[in-house]
């Protein structure tokens, strides 16, 4: 049991008695076959793959077994680029507790929805740049890989502006 669990912070004095409780639960998520292959390729070869729907020809990232539009099986793996375009972006300033650590997530940080070259859908990822004036929809970015990769989406450290 961590110190945090033993002694959660009490409520503020002026609010009267408030009973503290820390929800702390460990989960083990099965990635499934498609994400497993994606993350292994990312880790071992530094390459990014999507899957194509034979019906509508969409190339999905994250890769998945079924196309939600056509309700049919996907299956053909397609390598996509490590460069792409920002379709939505922000710089987060508001402090909040990160559920994965129970601690405040460091701010500011930039993140975006990025459509990689050759993909139809877009991916959430971090941006290196944290000045909103330098960011923008339509700007091109490139993945910066970590030297040591573990098989998670964070094997890509962040995306760097190209322009």
């Amino acid at each position, binding site marked *: 049991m961590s110190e945090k669990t033993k002694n959660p912070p009490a409520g503020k004095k002026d609010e009267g008695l408030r*009973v503290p409780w820390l929800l702390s639960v460990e989960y083990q998520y099965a*990635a499934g076959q498609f994400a497993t292959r994606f993350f292994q390729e990312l880790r071992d070869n530094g390459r990014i793959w999507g899957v194509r729907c034979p019906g509508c020809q969409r190339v999905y990232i994250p890769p998945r077994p079924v196309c939600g539009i056509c309700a049919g099986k996907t299956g053909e793996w397609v390598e996509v680029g490590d460069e792409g375009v920002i379709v939505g972006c922000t710089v987060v300033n508001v402090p909040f507790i990160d559920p994965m650590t129970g601690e405040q997530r460091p701010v500011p940080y930039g993140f975006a929805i990025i459509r990689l070259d050759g993909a139809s859908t877009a991916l959430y990822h971090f941006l290196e740049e944290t000045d909103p004036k330098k960011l923008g929809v339509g700007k091109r970015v490139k993945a910066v890989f970590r030297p040591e990769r573990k098989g998670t989406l964070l094997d890509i450290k962040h995306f760097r502006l190209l322009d």
Partner: protein
Amino acid sequence: MSESHWIVKQKIEIPFHYTPGPALLRFLEGLRDGKIFASGVRGESRKTVPPLSFCGRSWKPADDWTELPGTGTLESFAVVPHGMAELPQEGERIVFGLVKLDGADTCLAHLFHTKEPGKLKVGAKVRVRWHAERSPGIQAIAGFDLL
């Protein structure tokens, strides 16, 4: 984790602060003072502990208060084989039990330690054992001793 069955471990932690509301506040502060309070609807005999501020059956305020004597009956219990929240002391076992306190119509759930789990049985008469140092919370009750 096998290469074909990728497992991602993740912990989720979220802190909460709960407002007890007027009835539970009186109950929790009573525990701090070594007293157990139950409440019910005026004119009705039913008393609940922990107390409610409002009775969902008669849809009336439950503001008729009673102090309970601290004795009761063990209605059901389970001896927990392994430490859950805290590891028990040498020779102790953790017991999760429901105690119907004398004067109450509902059971109070509590977790307590005992060195003699074999002596516990449904229907046994018990008495509350207080911690010497108490703050407003259910932990003010250390456990229940067999009478």
